[in-house]
């Protein structure tokens, strides 16, 4: 415990802050990309299923699928913006 306290005392607060910011940025970007990845996979999978069941409606399905992908991707973009603000700003 004393060794740990001595180690903590040696850490520069500015370095600790930078390290925490870098780690948080990585978590923000990584976690924000996982959800949309699952969402897009589910969305496209269901769309392909719908197109296979009803090929004549493929145009409508593809249109809504594209918009769905773009909306889902917005979540990842929000995470990316948090990342660039934490990491580079």
């Amino acid at each position, binding site marked *: 415990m004393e060794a740990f306290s001595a180690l903590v005392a040696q850490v520069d607060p500015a370095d600790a802050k930078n390290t925490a910011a870098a780690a948080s940025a990585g978590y923000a970007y990584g976690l924000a*990309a996982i959800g*949309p*990845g699952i969402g*897009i*996979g589910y969305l*496209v*999978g269901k769309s*392909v299923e719908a*197109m*296979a069941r009803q*090929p004549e409606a*493929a*145009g*409508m399905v*593809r*249109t*809504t*699928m*594209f*918009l769905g*992908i*773009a*909306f889902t*991707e*917005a979540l*990842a*973009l*929000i995470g*990316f*913006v948090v990342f*660039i*603000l934490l990491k*580079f*700003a």
Partner: protein
Amino acid sequence: MTNHTGTNDAFTTRFDGPAPEVAVSTDLVKRGLLVAPVLIAVCAVVWGVDGAWSSAYGIVLVLVNFALAAALIAVAARISVGLMMGAALFGYLIRLGLIFIAVWLVKDAGWISLPALGSTIIVTHLGLLFWEMKYVALSLAHPGLKPSASNLDNSI
């Protein structure tokens, strides 16, 4: 869905013909270019000249992202539905990587303002999608009708 010989096939499937994603992304790009001066002006007021340049860069990023997503899906759909699914998933990863590289390359540039860039990316992306969704919802409700102001009035 047809196979390479044009006959119905449950296993080898692809979509020939017009790509609706390309039409949607073309609409998005047109509207994005339409509102770009307003967004740039707002960012210029809030963040100055750097904000204006960053906003313009952010708008270009979002529009290229839309166009690239549509092109990937449209090209893959002409080859096979399975490839379309792969293109949608891996295209997502590739486009995220490209956006990261595009921002990383300019992060230390003198003209960049990261808050302006970030807010422009989010506002442009979501704003254009909500704007487009109104017309797509109308098209789905009234297939074959070209979205216009009069159609919107009739649908209410």
